[in-house]
């Protein structure tokens, strides 16, 4: 299986990836993701998250949950259904290796003290890390699109977001007002 996959890398890897330094080989299946999640995993589509720099295990879990139907990914439903465990491991490794997105250019300026007052007591940094780069099963938040962060937080708050972390995320998000969510989303989006 491994050798077949390697062969696929060689056959389908886009030239742009091949030229990167150090070279990051895109699994063939990653071609499918570009339309919504952007070239090199940096999204330019509203409500569609950037995947570049996301922790390996985080990406794998989300794909597993979408494949199982725990998360309802809309247009992605048909794509994820066909993924093998091997595909999922490849995609996790690939997006983790890509350079994370730069600070989101159109993030609205917010009062950092206000953001910290909301996030500090909820211990966001304990799992997402001080630089919000994420770790393990916990997603990267820094530089993420604010529209997507708002959607994700509201989904956690309402219980619509199922899968990993839903217990901890519901515990911290259930007390958030809409304006709190918008504020921390823009704060995090502007993080390098």
């Amino acid at each position, binding site marked *: 299986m491994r050798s077949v996959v390697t062969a696929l890398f060689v056959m389908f890897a886009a030239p742009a990836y091949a030229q990167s330094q150090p070279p990051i080989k895109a699994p063939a299946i990653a071609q499918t993701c570009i339309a919504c999640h952007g070239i090199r995993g940096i999204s330019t589509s509203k409500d569609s998250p950037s995947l570049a720099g996301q922790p390996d295990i985080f990406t794998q879990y989300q794909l597993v949950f979408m494949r199982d*139907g725990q998360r309802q990914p809309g247009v992605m439903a048909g794509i994820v259904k066909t993924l093998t465990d091997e595909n999922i491991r490849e995609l996790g490794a690939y997006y983790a290796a890509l350079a994370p997105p730069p600070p989101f250019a159109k993030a609205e300026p917010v009062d950092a003290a206000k953001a910290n007052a909301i996030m500090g007591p909820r211990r966001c940094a304990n799992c997402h890390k001080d630089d919000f780069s994420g770790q393990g099963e916990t997603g990267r938040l820094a530089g993420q699109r604010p529209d997507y962060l708002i959607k994700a937080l509201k989904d956690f708050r309402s219980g619509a977001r199922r899968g990993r972390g839903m217990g901890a995320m519901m515990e911290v998000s259930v007390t958030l007002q809409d304006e709190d969510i918008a504020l921390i989303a823009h704060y995090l989006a502007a993080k390098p």
Partner: protein
Amino acid sequence: MRRQETALAKACLAGVIAAVFGCASMAVQAQELKKYDSSGKDFWLKPPPDWFLGDENKEQKGQTPNPGQPTPTPKAELDKILAGIKLPPGFKIAVWADSVPQARQMAWGDKGTLFVGTFDKGTVHSVSGPDGQKVVKPFITGLRMPTGVAFQDGALYVVDIDKLYRYDNPEANLERAPEGKVVYDDFPPYVPHGWKYLVPDGKGWFYIPVGVPCNICLPPASTGHYRRVDPKTGAAEIVALGVRNSVGGAVDPRTGQLWFTDNGRDWVSDDLPNDELNRVSKIGEHFGYPYCHQGDLADPKYGADRKCSEFTPPVYKQGPHIAGLGMKFYTGDMFPPEYKNGIFIAQHGSWNRAKKLGYRVLFLSVDPDGKNPKEQVFAGTWLDDQKILGRPADVLQAPDGSLLVADDQAGAIYRISYQK
């Protein structure tokens, strides 16, 4: 009392409480307590500013629940891992089924199918096949956290966060699960610690834990206890209070009493509090949460105006953060006689302490009244130094008297057998 003071002193040394209250004056706590009355809606909408603060010290920063594995460990690697698992003389462990993602509570069907719950994957797997094959299939999908399963009177029961389902005659068609019937839905909606375990009481009812939706809080009234539910009528009653997050229990074959594991609170210190093994000797007994942990440790926030002596202490302290989950009394004939009526506990393993603890199956021989607990590390450990190789989440006796162990990290089920 002496023990309690020592324990408190230790907690203070850990520096957790010192930052918030100062340990010298516990009287101050009594006045502060009002602020943390989390029983009303206002508290949750506008929590006091230090509600979550003080819950970690420098050493504990960055500790998070183990991420686990999104996909199961391949069979060849499982074999290698099991070669390193230590057992008492005469016992053997082998892979019974691989590729059972997130394997949690297990239950035998009448016709030999093994049903296996999962954590947040939302699936109940079936494991069966002709001539002892272990074909793993997602039998029920699309639930939220169906951790608890049981088989009773020809039906599979599955408990999700807020509902108990019945699937009639499931082994007649393992290709497609029958429509689940909701037989009980009077559970709170909270996801945190909302995952459950099913303990048949032997009379047709189930003991079911209802966890608290927090690490430490005054629990909302509908949480923090064990209840007994009749799946035929939907009737229910509270049997034990002061329970934080139990995901394992069993009825003692000697007495018919409920015993259960309970995971203690986080962020006190590496070594406190111990997770509990409890025995319910009378209906409505209170096991201490959130006021008192491990029978002798007053909670830094809630312990001030209550005494540990008001509550039932655990039969056995399992170890701090060790996360004993699924448990069963052993009633088989395969193992040596000293194992009869003893308890096997799947100790899932710690996250809220610097050095990992658990990741093993514990055996405990103990008198029916809870006296004379004697522990034995039975199978373990699923650790390579600090690297996690697997996490036992449940144990189940097989019809031949061997013991199955569900591992929800490696996504596998092991079989432990004995031969003289």
